[in-house]
């Protein structure tokens, strides 16, 4: 055995590790030859499996743990670069070494651009070259993945910075506007109150006018208040809290609305939930908002179900939502809060927009469209996730919290 490789403990070419190699090869003779070369090689160690179909390879790759694929581009169910594309799309994390009989430099370069780690021409390499190509491909892929992860972390940090900067600017603007607008609003409100007390004897039209002015002023004030809420999120007071207690407290605010509209409430709270690091007041605000939305979605009464549970995070917790989940690692401890209604659900087109500022389906009824966008901003600032999906009986709001204190 070559001493250089035997004693090489450098991670870049750790030839002592056993590689799981899937050979996807159209030609059974080639396949047997590759297996022979690898299993008889004096260095390196391999666990091998072969298939002659791309579709079959998808099944095999999905079931086991694989380090590298030796890929023939021309198979019975796929040919050319399309083969590489399909494989790479399905399994972006597996290292692929293209192994083909077609000798063409431009194709080789294209294969590398399309995600292959190397491009081998059948018959143009010997055992050593093949082993080296496989080990190097695995290491290159690992380095590439690390780089990608670092890039993603950087991108995430950048977008958080932009978000913070944006909130700071909006915050400054909003509090400036709020002060300037609230003063005249206060004047109008006191003016209307004074007129209302003085004009008690006058006709209905004047009373109606005064009432409209008062309500419009109040509305303007509410919008200013929402804007300030939206803007003041940079100051969170994060403390580990019992999420069940926070929900119970939120329910005090919404009980009256529920009773009035004949809506029933069912609670399934998990016992012994770990405490969740949150700003209690902000999360209460979100829960109240979600419950009020649920109530509004059921004008003829219905059922609100609130559930809490703790578990390990899985991608399936995102319920098929396209949400960016990089903040959560599979296996991480999480607490989930779900609020289900039995309303008419949200149509697919609107589902994508519900968190946009000023989007509302209740504009005519006086909705401003800041509720859910504020909720989302609050949840994001907790490093948590909020998603809205339709389930078989209505709409489900789900919030996923981390239990670790790294927010």
């Amino acid at each position, binding site marked *: 055995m070559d001493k250089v490789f035997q004693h090489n403990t450098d991670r870049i070419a750790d030839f002592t590790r056993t590689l799981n190699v899937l050979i996807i090869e159209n030609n059974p003779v080639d396949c047997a030859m590759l297996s022979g070369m690898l299993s008889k090689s004096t260095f390196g160690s391999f666990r091998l499996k072969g298939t002659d179909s791309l579709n079959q390879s998808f099944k095999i790759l999905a079931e086991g743990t694989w380090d590298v694929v030796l890929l023939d581009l021309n198979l019975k169910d796929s040919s050319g670069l399309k083969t590489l594309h399909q494989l790479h799309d399905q399994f972006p994390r597996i290292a692929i070494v293209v192994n083909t009989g077609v000798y063409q430099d431009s194709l080789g370069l294209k294969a590398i651009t399309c995600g292959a780690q190397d491009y081998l021409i059948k018959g143009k390499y010997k055992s050593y070259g093949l082993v080296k190509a496989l080990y190097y491909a695995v290491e290159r892929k690992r380095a590439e993945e690390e780089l990608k992860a670092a890039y993603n972390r950087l991108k995430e940090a950048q977008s958080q910075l932009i978000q913070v900067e944006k909130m700071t600017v909006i915050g400054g603007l909003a*509090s400036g506007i709020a*002060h300037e607008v609230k*003063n005249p*609003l206060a*004047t109008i*409100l006191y003016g209307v109150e*004074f007129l209302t007390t003085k004009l008690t004897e006058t006709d209905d039209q004047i009373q109606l006018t005064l009432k409209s002015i008062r309500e419009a*002023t109040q509305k303007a*004030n509410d919008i200013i208040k929402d804007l*300030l809420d939206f803007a003041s999120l940079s100051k969170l007071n994060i403390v580990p809290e019992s999420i069940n207690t926070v929900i119970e407290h939120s329910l005090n605010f919404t009980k009256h609305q529920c009773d009035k509209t004949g809506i029933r409430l069912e609670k399934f709270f998990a016992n012994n939930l770990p405490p969740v690091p949150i700003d209690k007041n902000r999360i209460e605000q979100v829960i109240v908002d979600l419950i009020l939305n649920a109530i509004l979605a059921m004008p003829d009464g219905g059922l609100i179900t609130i559930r809490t549970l703790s578990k390990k995070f899985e991608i399936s917790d995102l319920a098929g939502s396209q949400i960016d989940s990089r903040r959560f690692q599979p296996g991480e401890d999480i607490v989930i809060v779900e609020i289900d209604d039995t309303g008419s659900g949200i149509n697919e087109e609107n589902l994508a927009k519900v968190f946009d500022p000023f989007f509302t389906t209740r504009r005519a009824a006086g909705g401003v469209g800041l509720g859910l966008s504020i909720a989302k901003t609050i949840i994001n600032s907790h490093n948590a996730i909020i998603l809205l999906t339709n389930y078989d009986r209505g709409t489900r709001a789900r919030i996923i919290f981390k239990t670790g204190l790294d927010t």
Partner: protein
Amino acid sequence: MNIYPEKKKILIIDDESGFTEMVKLNLEATGKYLVRCENNGMRAVDAAQEYQPDLILLDIIMPETDGTDICWRIKEQEELQTVPVVFLTATVRKNEVEAQHGDIGGYAFLAKPTTVEELTECIESHLNPNS
């Protein structure tokens, strides 16, 4: 001199003359108060010394000066030391005031806009009982 001794004298210091006029109209309409408006922050201390109010309503952000600064300068005057000051301001929000039980740094706060009822309740709760 208070020619209606049964009425409490309120001094409001705020640069928005429309606002102070409305406060005056509403408070005087209750029959319980006499109100003087001062729209120039620089004249606030003089106005307080002259008027000898039972309570001062004070805006925080004004063009030439700062309400908290005016408050210190008023409190420096011996005869005004016990006069309660209520900050009436648009810079804080109602829920922030409520969270602090209407008290920030030992001073009473009211977040604009309020109803007349909230304003009179606040004034009544801060008036010195023997003033």
